[in-house]
């Protein structure tokens, strides 16, 4: 994949739109703090995906590097789920 100024600028526009959405969400939809955190983290996840795919060039990286990252995320997710279950039942 070829990274260009045009692509970087398009991604910037997308990120700015999502940042605006982050600010507007509580005004547009007034939710409970728990649901607000969920929606906000959902928007953050899309932003993280855009930055890592295009600015950090993960989209065009070799499979082994993507594999390392996915493996690290899975390990972290396992810790999150185990601790989450423990906290929810204690």
């Amino acid at each position, binding site marked *: 994949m070829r*990274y*260009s*100024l045009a692509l*970087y*600028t398009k991604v*910037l526009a997308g*990120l*700015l739109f999502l*940042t605006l959405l*982050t*600010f507007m*969400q*509580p*005004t547009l939809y007034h939710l409970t*703090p*728990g649901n*607000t*955190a969920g929606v*906000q*983290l959902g*928007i*953050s996840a899309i*932003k*993280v995906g855009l*930055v*890592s795919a295009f*600015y*950090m060039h993960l989209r065009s990286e*070799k499979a082994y*590097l993507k594999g*390392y*990252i996915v493996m*690290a995320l899975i390990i*972290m997710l396992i*810790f*999150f789920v185990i*601790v*989450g279950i423990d*906290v*929810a039942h204690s």
Partner: protein
Amino acid sequence: MEQEMAYDRQGNSYPVADFKDDYSGDKLGFWVFLLTEGMMFGALFLLYGIYFYRHTAIFASSSADLNIWLGGTNTVLLLASTYTMGVATLMMRQGKLKLSATLVGLTLFIAIVFLGIKASEWGVDISHGIYPGSALLDAKDKGEILFFGLYFVMTGLHGLHVIIGIALMSWVLLLMRSGGIRPEHTIVMKNVTLYWDFVHLIWIVLFPLLYMIGV
């Protein structure tokens, strides 16, 4: 003994004479470092999640005490700086050295402004007696003590990474001057850009958790 092979940016293999200028190896090593950093911040996010679950209402009301405009300004600043640093690397690869150096300088400036805003935010909190271990904070609800404790630890650790980023960008500028970074040799700049993107990624998650849940 079998000849060890390395790969250049285009994926062409070549025999390893030494470990200098190993583009793939340098990049992989830096990614492994970033993953360990991610694990460190991940532990803090997990801790935040646990206490948010246990003190949801207090965390929301404590979050409302933070200045969303300053936090929001910093969010936009970091986003802009990720763009300028990324474009700087693109320009270096295209041989536009002067423009590239200007963009790195601009990123550096934005990072300093970010730190200045964060310092002023901390200054206001501290002048109001809100800091870990203060008599005023210790007299408050347990949830509020935890929220502000996590706020100072997480933004402090992130701020430390911004300071390291400023030092690294200054080093990049020096290397650009000395020819250590040039269009056909950009791995140091690429890794510093990756580092700065990572600093931005952490803030993307930190900002809503700290500032938006109480709006």
